[in-house]
């Protein structure tokens, strides 16, 4: 019972708490984590269990509370209510003891643009007080491993997005943290560099590092071992990508019609149809499982409007999961 929509969430929370009280298998377990800025609640009642040696994704649009949640988990923001155990330490209480054990990559590039790649790495190594020998071997290794050797004496501020991001990750892992918090690490990076970046993340996870990574890219979310979908500060779904795709509670249909725009307007007029998205000449339609025969419903709606169409059933993509779960939370709000 790892995946549930929010409506089914309550039972899971109780379940999770009783399990967590006894052991420390999670790198992070948060309960009821909330943060308000004045009237705005940026994160509301976030429950989170992040296993060790896995990549956990935070998927959500801009403003959904990803950064705020990550900042609370590393002690940069004080939760308005709720709390978390991070690497067995309670946050925000013990964040000082936590700092040497986590690596944090901020959403905005936060190394020094007027220092060179090497100088930045030496600075971070010294701030974490690495021993002299370890300092040298770690920096040499990472320069090589992250393809930065040739850039070692280039000012960090003059590098491309992909290079900056590699440097930021190299600095975040310099002291070999047990937990990595990465806030939209690939937002300024082209697809090829993103792929390379993710292979680095898998290497790190295989070596035992727990990784929390926020993103608004569906394809990235798909690579995570597990993920949580955030919408307006609320976790609307979580689980492995496969679990999420298997239990949207929606039937996914693809429709080929002569005039997709007209078809879309016709379908949206029917309130039984949850969502209609145009993908080129196709339409992707979500119909709640509460309607027995979704294909027949769509066919008859289009027929009424005199639109010729061809309907096929499809597997839910993560995007469908995202649409389905945010729809559901919007209804509840």
């Amino acid at each position: 019972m790892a995946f549930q929509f929010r409506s089914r969430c309550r039972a899971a929370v109780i379940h999770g708490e009783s399990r967590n009280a006894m052991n420390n298998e999670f790198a992070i377990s948060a309960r009821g984590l909330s943060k308000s800025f004045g009237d705005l609640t940026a994160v509301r009642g976030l429950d989170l269990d992040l296993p060790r040696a896995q990549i956990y994704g935070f998927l959500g649009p801009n403003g959904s509370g990803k950064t705020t949640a990550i900042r609370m988990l590393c002690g940069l923001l004080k939760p308005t209510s709720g709390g978390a155990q991070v690497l067995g330490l309670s946050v925000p209480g013990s964040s000082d003891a936590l700092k040497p054990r986590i690596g944090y990559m901020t959403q905005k590039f936060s190394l020094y643009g007027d220092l060179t790649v090497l100088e930045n790495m030496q600075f971070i190594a010294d701030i974490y007080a690495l021993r002299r020998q370890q300092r040298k071997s770690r920096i040499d290794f990472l320069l090589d491993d992250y393809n930065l050797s040739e850039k070692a004496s280039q000012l960090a501020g003059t590098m491309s997005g992909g290079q900056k991001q590699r440097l930021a990750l190299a600095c975040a892992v310099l002291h070999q943290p047990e937990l990595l918090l990465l806030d939209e690490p690939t937002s300024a990076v082209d697809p090829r560099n993103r792929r390379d970046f993710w292979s680095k993340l898998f290497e790190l996870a295989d070596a035992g590092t727990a990784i929390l990574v926020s993103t608004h890219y569906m394809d990235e979310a798909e690579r995570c071992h597990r993920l949580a979908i955030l919408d307006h500060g609320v976790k609307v779904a979580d689980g492995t990508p496969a679990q999420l795709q298997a239990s949207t509670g929606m039937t996914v249909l693809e429709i080929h019609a002569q005039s997709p725009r007209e078809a879309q307007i016709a379908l949206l007029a029917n309130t039984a149809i949850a969502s209609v998205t145009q993908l080129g000449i196709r339409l992707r339609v979500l119909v709640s499982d509460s309607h027995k025969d979704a294909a027949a419903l769509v066919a008859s709606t289009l027929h009424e409007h005199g639109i010729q169409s061809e309907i096929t059933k499809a597997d839910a993509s993560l995007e469908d999961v995202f649409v389905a779960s945010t729809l559901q939370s919007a209804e509840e709000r």
Partner: protein
Amino acid sequence: MRPVRIFAIMRKELLQLKRDRISLAMIVGIPIMQILLFGYAINMDVRNLRAAVADQANTHSSRQFVASLAQTQILVIEKAVATPQQLQDLLRAGQISVGVHLPFDFDRRVLDKHRAAAHLLVDGSDPTILGVANQLVNVPLGAMPAAQGLSNVRNIEVRPFYNPERRTAVNVVPGLVGVILTLTMMMFTAVAIVRERERGNLELLINTPISTAQLMIGKVLPYIAIGLIQLALAIAVGRTLFQVPVHGSMLELYVAASVFIAANLSLGLFVSTVAKTQFQAMQVTFFVLLPSILLSGFVFPFDGMPDIARWLGEALPITHFIRITRGIMLKGASISELSHEILALLAFTTIAMSAAVLRFSRRLD
């Protein structure tokens, strides 16, 4: 506390400074420019005022008196005219700053204690020139600055103590060094933390194990060295171009200056924890700079100020530093004679630094 973290911050600050050409130029440029400006352009020296003489007596002693006035080098006598009316015309036209009128009965007046022997017609619209006239005569000012009595030629020979030539540079440089250091040192640290916040570096930095005290100390130490370089430059320019003396121990001057620099840097750090933007930090710096110039005894004599201004002045590090520099440079005082001032600076540093450490938040909210 592992010093490696402090060294890391220090090294980073110096590397950033090395690549910031404008700031580097300012470190060297500000002391040299300021000393040159005050030494040459802003000349408050009582010298070379343009003057004209209306010597109606034209006797041996009156001519001698005019000659001795010229010898003081305070006046340059450019014109001789016939009547005091012509002196007034020249004054009004701005062609002269001082008019010397010697009446027909000059010889008799010199012997008469109750009558002025000569009249100095002074351009009272310029307080500096008025001050010069007061140095030329030894009698109290009358209501009208345009007609001053000059009763005794020997009055002109009065010499002030520590600056016998009454040269502005000698008076100004010891205080100016304090103003230069207040401005540049506060500026460096006032923007130090705000800049990291604005550029996003701080979010990374406060998530590392570095402590607030380590961060603050690492940010202060490099600039103490920078401040001492500025002091050395200012003194070098003052000595070579304006013969400003350092009668006391140079080493003691540097020791005292280090404490003063630390006080300004700590104050700057505190400002940096309060200001939200670099612009605000600059504004607060200038807010401190103005009283530092006006209330420290740099411009106006400290003793002549009202109580409240003196209290405010005592709270400023520069007031104590100016006493130290004037003491060591001009009067040859030793640091032990100035221990009160050093203690005041140490206390200020401690308070400002503690306030900065306490105010600094290792969170974002």
